[in-house]
């Protein structure tokens, strides 16, 4: 295995495509960081990053099969499984490198964001982002190993990522059914009362959802959100699974967490009763236990997902004959 990893590292370091992907990651991270600092918190960066993975890994792994180089490995006494696992490990290493670049560029450009958000949360968000990136890479490598043709692999992986992103667009946030109302930036800004509860006017306003969503005030002071969509069990099941299995959902969760903690740069200058936006929000995001619990759950689920995706990929790949 170590021989395959050494050889793979040599291959990646010699690959122009790899260095191009690193450069694109650095540039896009810089643009993202700059955008977040100067305008508002834009969360589409993860889609760009995932697409970079789709192109890089499907082309890198696909060429092993297209150019027939995997034959040298098999003839050299390496098993199919070892080749597959080595490709997974290499992709994870490359992902970590790109994630590191991206994180450093963002942190350098936005030190104020990092300083505001509690350290524990930012560490969890970073780890969750990294594992989501690795899950995405693992999916791409597994598909590329199964398809064994780089052009088909890059097309399928790109389409799959678009589908994953699209499937989340219909999600009603965090899929806890029934769920408690979350204190998000807009509601806080517009509707939060002095004691941290929603005003009756706000509840009235929120009742006017087009899709029939109803918000009820509970005796314990929480708010219950009931959406008619969740009464459809199949839809709920799909949304629930999608929320955990789709690596984009981790990224959306992270961005939401950061947004809750940080908000927009424009809002950051807003002053209310002499307090800045951050100071107004601080008590709420610090007490947002539900969202943090969800983040913890995702962190626990991530290793299982990595093993599950790579395991399913290995089982299918082993059944395939080499071209």
């Amino acid at each position: 295995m170590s021989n395959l990893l050494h050889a793979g590292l040599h291959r990646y370091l010699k690959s122009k495509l790899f260095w191009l992907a690193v450069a694109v990651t650095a540039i896009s991270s810089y643009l993202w960081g700059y955008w977040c600092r100067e305008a508002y918190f834009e969360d589409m960066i993860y889609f760009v990053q995932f697409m970079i993975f789709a192109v890089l890994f499907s082309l890198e792994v696909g060429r092993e099969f297209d150019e027939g180089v995997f034959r040298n490995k098999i003839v050299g006494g390496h098993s199919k499984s070892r080749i597959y696992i080595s490709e997974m490990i290499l992709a994870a290493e490359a992902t970590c490198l790109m994630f590191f670049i991206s994180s450093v560029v963002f942190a350098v450009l936005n030190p104020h964001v990092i300083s505001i958000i509690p350290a524990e949360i930012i560490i969890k968000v970073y780890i969750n982002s990294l594992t989501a990136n690795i899950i995405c890479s693992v999916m791409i490598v597994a598909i590329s190993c199964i398809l064994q043709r780089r052009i088909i692999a890059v097309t399928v992986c790109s389409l799959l990522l678009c589908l994953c992103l699209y499937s989340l667009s219909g999600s009603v946030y965090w899929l806890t059914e029934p769920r408690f109302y979350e204190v998000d930036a807009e509601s806080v800004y517009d509707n939060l009362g002095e004691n941290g509860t929603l005003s009756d006017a706000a509840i009235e306003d929120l009742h006017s959802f087009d899709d029939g969503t109803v918000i009820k005030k509970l005796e314990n002071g929480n708010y219950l959100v009931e959406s008619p969509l969740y009464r459809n069990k199949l839809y709920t099941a799909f949304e629930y699974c999608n929320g955990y299995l789709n690596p984009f959902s981790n990224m959306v969760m992270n961005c939401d967490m950061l947004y809750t903690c940080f908000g927009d740069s424009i809002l950051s200058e807003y002053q209310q009763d002499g307090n800045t936006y951050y100071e107004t929000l601080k008590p709420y995001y610090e007490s947002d236990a539900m969202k943090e619990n969800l983040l913890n759950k995702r962190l626990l689920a991530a290793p299982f997902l990595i093993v599950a995706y790579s395991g399913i990929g290995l089982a299918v790949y082993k059944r395939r004959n080499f071209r």
Partner: protein
Amino acid sequence: MEYILTTNSLGKKYRHFHALDNISLHVPKGSIYGLVGKNGAGKTTLIRVVCGLQEPSTGEYCLCSVKNTDAGISKARRRVSALVETPALYLDMNAYDNLKQQCLILGVPSFDEIPQIIKFVGLEGAKKKTVRNYSLGMKQRLGIAIAMIGNPDFILLDEPINGLDPQGIIEVRELILKLNRERQVTVLVSSHILDELSKIATHYGFLNGGHLVKETSAEEINLACRKCAVVTVSDVKGLALVLDEMKIEYEVVSDTEAKIYEEPNITTLVTGLLKHNCELISYQQKNESLENYFINLIGGVQNE
């Protein structure tokens, strides 16, 4: 005789198609084994199975004295290398990096051998060029160079001269002979260009429709393909007496026909035959090539 590869009733089936059927092959150590067969005869499939690229459907094989079902087969494969179909190369790397990559795959600790191998295959002039810009012959030579990494005992070459120009064919042929003579590497070469194969092979296996039709040595083939004259006479006994008198090597084929393996003096032969009241009906020079031998062999099988 010690064998580096033996197969026992090896078979490979794709759904309802038998690509290999009951193949029992024996490749002697130190030989250049020519695997002969038409397109689709099963040559590449056999090489792919032996290399581990595909699993056999039936039977087994023994590589470097290790059975394919034994745990040690992975180790045994490290003594074997192969060039299957097209050379497996990283097109955006140069020759040195491709060879370094193979060293890393095999866990060869030192890269010192690489310049020697590049020289051995005659690619010193192009070592900095990316493989994408190589000619087919250069790629083929680099493929063989990759197969040489780690000093293997056995190299399998699948159609190594396919698509090469005459110069390229000569170069690859010389390379195979050099490998066999200077490095004592056993080489299995598959080809349907029999003329080329006949210049290097010491042993042959003939495949047709997934079956091993015949396995033989180059000496036996040479004997079968010897240059001769087929003489048809009224009485072969008279001809035999004359040829004995002339001390010429011959072989009686039938009551009226014999093969003569040396060039006789025609006047002496005819005079001798007249003396024994034997009439010369026809005299035909025959030079049977490996191709003819193969066609006859395959034809014979197909007619059965």
